[in-house]
């Protein structure tokens, strides 16, 4: 039985406006969707103004498409536009109660050679943005009672974040440490993803950070505004026997066809969509506009 497939026209525009001229800027883009078990990219383009002097595409350590570029013309504004079509298939359903006890997914230090376990190892330990401390580990462990099926425990943790933490776009910045997010109990999707990763890894469960987009709905009776969709972040947990299962702590749910994956890594630092280091520039402002538009279902089943 085939599962539902949704196709999207995705547009992601980032505008940087600098108060003083930038003489040279180096960037790293994770702006092209990677292929996943349930997603494929039909067409994708990334355009830059001004045009970079150097542009090189490669695949990073985790298999994500990445672009290295340098802009050497003096500029006061940079526009990065990504656009393309992706097809997302509904993720394979997993019965949480039927997943193995979480202890079986725990890493231990011994050398492993099983390729599947091995491939999860890079995601098993603290990474720069998920270092938290014992308080977070203890908090996470409450969901991991002995013998509990791993996905059930992970869903519980996912739920607790949604229940106990407040979504607040003003409380944190991109560099707020997880321990601070944990203390003030508020943040945005990136913070919640990092917190969940810190908890899972503290317990010993490999989990990765997923960067992508989320389809949003217009207010009831209203029209969807252009550019109102957004970049999003969630978490993927390794469930032995079932591969990786994506959980979205910001929205208290498992990933669906509404989640479009860009890239995954250990944390935001590995896959931030547009990274940059500039010479000059003074103050800068950034505007991000994302549209995720479902495409009418004419040929999707083909």
């Amino acid at each position: 039985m085939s599962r539902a497939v949704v196709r999207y026209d995705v547009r992601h525009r980032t505008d940087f406006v600098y108060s003083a001229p930038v003489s040279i800027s180096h960037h790293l883009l994770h702006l092209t969707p990677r292929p996943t078990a349930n997603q494929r990219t039909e067409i994708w383009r990334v355009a830059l103004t001004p045009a970079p002097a150097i542009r090189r595409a490669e695949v990073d350590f985790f298999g994500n498409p990445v672009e290295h570029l340098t802009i050497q013309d003096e500029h006061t504004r940079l526009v990065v536009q990504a656009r393309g079509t992706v097809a997302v298939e509904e993720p394979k359903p997993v019965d949480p109660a039927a997943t193995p006890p979480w202890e079986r997914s725990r890493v231990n230090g011994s050398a492993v050679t099983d390729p599947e376990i091995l491939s999860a190892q890079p995601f098993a330990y603290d990474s720069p943005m998920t270092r938290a401390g014992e308080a977070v580990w203890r908090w996470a462990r409450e969901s991991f009672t002995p013998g509990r099926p791993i996905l059930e425990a992970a869903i519980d943790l996912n739920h607790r974040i949604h229940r106990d933490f407040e979504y607040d776009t003003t409380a944190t910045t991109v560099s707020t440490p997880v321990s601070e997010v944990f203390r003030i109990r508020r943040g945005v999707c990136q913070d919640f993803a990092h917190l969940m990763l810190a908890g899972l890894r503290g317990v010993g469960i490999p989990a990765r950070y997923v960067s992508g987009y989320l389809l949003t709905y217009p207010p009831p009776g209203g029209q969807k505004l252009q550019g109102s969709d957004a970049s999003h972040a969630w978490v993927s947990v390794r469930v032995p026997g079932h591969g990786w299962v994506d959980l979205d702590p910001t929205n208290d749910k498992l990933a669906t066809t509404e989640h479009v994956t860009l890239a995954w890594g250990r944390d935001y630092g590995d896959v931030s969509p547009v990274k940059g280091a500039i010479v000059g520039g003074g103050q800068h402002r950034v505007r991000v506009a994302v549209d995720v538009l479902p495409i009418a279902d004419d040929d999707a089943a083909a």
Partner: protein
Amino acid sequence: MPPSASVHSDDPDDLLVDYRTLDGIYDELVAPDGERRPYWRSFLDGMRSLPADEVAQHPQTALRLIRQHGVTYNVYGDPKGEQRPWELDVMPLIIPEDEWDLLERGLKQRARLMNAILADLYGPQTLIKDGVLPSALVYANPNFHLPCHGIVPPYETFLQLYAADIARSPDGRWWVFNDRTQAPSGAGYALENRVITAQCLSDLFREGRVRRLAHFFQALRENLRALSGKDDPRIVLLTPGPLNETYFEHAFLARYLGYPLVEGADLTVRDNRVYLKTIGGLQPVDVVLRRIDTEWCDPLELRPDSALGVAGLVEAARAGNVTIANALGSGLVECTALMGFLPGLCSHLLGEELVLPHIATWWCGQQSAREHVIANLDSMVVARTFQTPTLVNAEAGQVLGSALDAAERAALIERIRQRGYDYVGQEAITLSTAPAWDQGKLVARPMALRMFATALGDDYAVMPGGLTRISESNSTRAVSMQRGSGSKDTWVLSSAPVDSFSLLRPEESTPVLRRAGDDLPSRAADNMYWLGRYAERTENAMRLLRSLLTRLAEDSVQDSTANVAMQKLLYMLAHPGDVDGLMRRRGRTLSPAQIEHRIQAYLFDPAEPNGIPQLVKTVNRVASLTRDRLSLDAWRTLDQLHQEALRQRPRVWLDIGDASAILNDMLRTMSAFSGLGMENTTRTQGWRFLDMGRRMERAATMAGLLRGLLSAGDPERQGFLDRLLELADSFMTYRARYVSAPRLVPVLDLLLVDESNPRSVGFQLDALEQHAARLPRFGDALDRSPEQRQILSCQAAIRLADVRTLAQADSKGRRVELDTLLARVAGALADLSETIGRHYFSHADLGRHTEAASLRRFFEP
């Protein structure tokens, strides 16, 4: 610990008469039977043949040399933030040839092994895939940097420099207890120890067949050159800056090896190539010898909050356009937990048995090791797996199991059970002891040795010597420089004659000028320029104060003319450009007591912003930023001045004679510094910027003095002319030319126009003009540069001025023409300073880089 053996000696003059070894501990000098070890004998005999009073002087001599050479280290988090003098014990550690052969072989093998491990982990990772090495030691290790994965350095050599700390156990075997692969420090200190020890013990050193260190550094240099694939590559030494623990060593090595010492802000990446920003434009860099840890090296791909690195460096290395030594990411194998796996890795990767043993190590990521550590906690040192001790602080994050109370112990065991991979247990080691001076006697002190290797061809060359560190206490498990411990020179004996090749002598006193000098980093030029300005400003302030003191002693301050003169001179110190304005605004109201108080403050008060202590401090700070470009003598001179200034405190009574003497001393020191600048510094572009700063400041000060003292009133009657001649050191010249008492017209001529007087404004402009003509040019070489134009226009104004007209006062006693001219000169000088800054210090797109790594959040739900 109780003394166990004393030395067999019938001679009461024997140096070792009170020497006691410790029970159960290996002593480097004395065998358990109380006999001196044979390979020490010729050294000890040599010591005995020296006069006792000379031997007693050695520690003082060493201390003096350390001060003079400015050998220091910094301690992070030290509230005083002061540099600490390096501590050296002049009694060397002696290692016999046969023992050294084993150590050398062992170190080479270990370096090759570490290199092979890095090549695998940053490449195919078969060690992980085949289960030879647990992946946690890589993926949980913060020194594994993903962006560096897949970068293959030239010849697959990750480690250009490798160091290991070794210690000798009671059975006499040497054990490795630390590996250093990130950016090993200490080789420069080892060399300094050699230089100083060899001076103290020159005869013994010469006759002792001690292997020389220079070949090691020559190998390092040759190796870096070979890596670049060029005959004459540009190699830079990248330092985090003067606050780093071992900055002295960075500056010392840079000078010794002949590489520019640069900070991240000196470099930029364009077209995936690394460039050095110099006064002559961007110069390509082939090799970066880094003393910055990997994570700080590139704010784009590594730590985004790093202000020490160079954006784009990782990509430049990836493109193969620059060689970084050691390769980025090489700190990965410093981890002590790796030690337990080395025997297996050595046979797996090299097909060899490990030559040098390391201290017993149990990584708690493995269950059996974890249980062993928990069961034997009392005999263990437990450390966090991924914390690396430093040269200065060797004990970061370590705890001794036996030192824990019951609650701490239970908590530690719980942590080890929960996150075993984060902990490593090591056998608590006991160090051997070596003889060290303590209050005129030799005593046995625990010691450890850091050895160094540099890549050469497909093998490594080992420094025949190393950095021996000694500890004050016997309980220390590792030796750290932070707790009042010291260091020693290490003498490796040779049965064959040694040759006395040295890199040091030709390079000690002057920076190596390898190209025309246009590769002077812009930041260094900036610092040199300001060093010149501040040094001159300080000297001028000293002269002014001296003049004030003289006046205070000679004149009755009650005399209102004298009082006004004193006030003018005082204001000159703080606001040379606005003396008359200040006089008008504040009135001529300072009482004699207030004047004395102000002078006192300028002289001694460390809080006075324009006072001597602050000025000297500033000079010292700027000098330390550009220390690698100053001759040793120049540095010592400034340091001496700094010490002198630091000693001064405000007095209850101002003793004029005493204060004058202090000022005279300081002025002499300052003049010595200027003299060294003229006579002992090669005419590099660095020197040029130093001198330009000095000329600029002198011209501005003189113009300010002339304007403040001469543009109104009757300077002849007020005695200003005498003051001016004194301040300008031009009394003798004046006397030689004119019989009369100082008159306005000839004084103006001498101090403003006369280009043969080294204190006149005209002379400074002439010197600046000559400098400007030799600066690198950006535009058409036939045209005059903007700097030259500015100078010429100023020069012309002075040359064309008629001194007699300038000297004429109007009916209100004002000399408007003189005032206008001097105001114009002051303005032109300020403009010129800015032009130089714009062109050479921050020229085209060389602005400081602003980090914007994680530009902003992009996520909304």
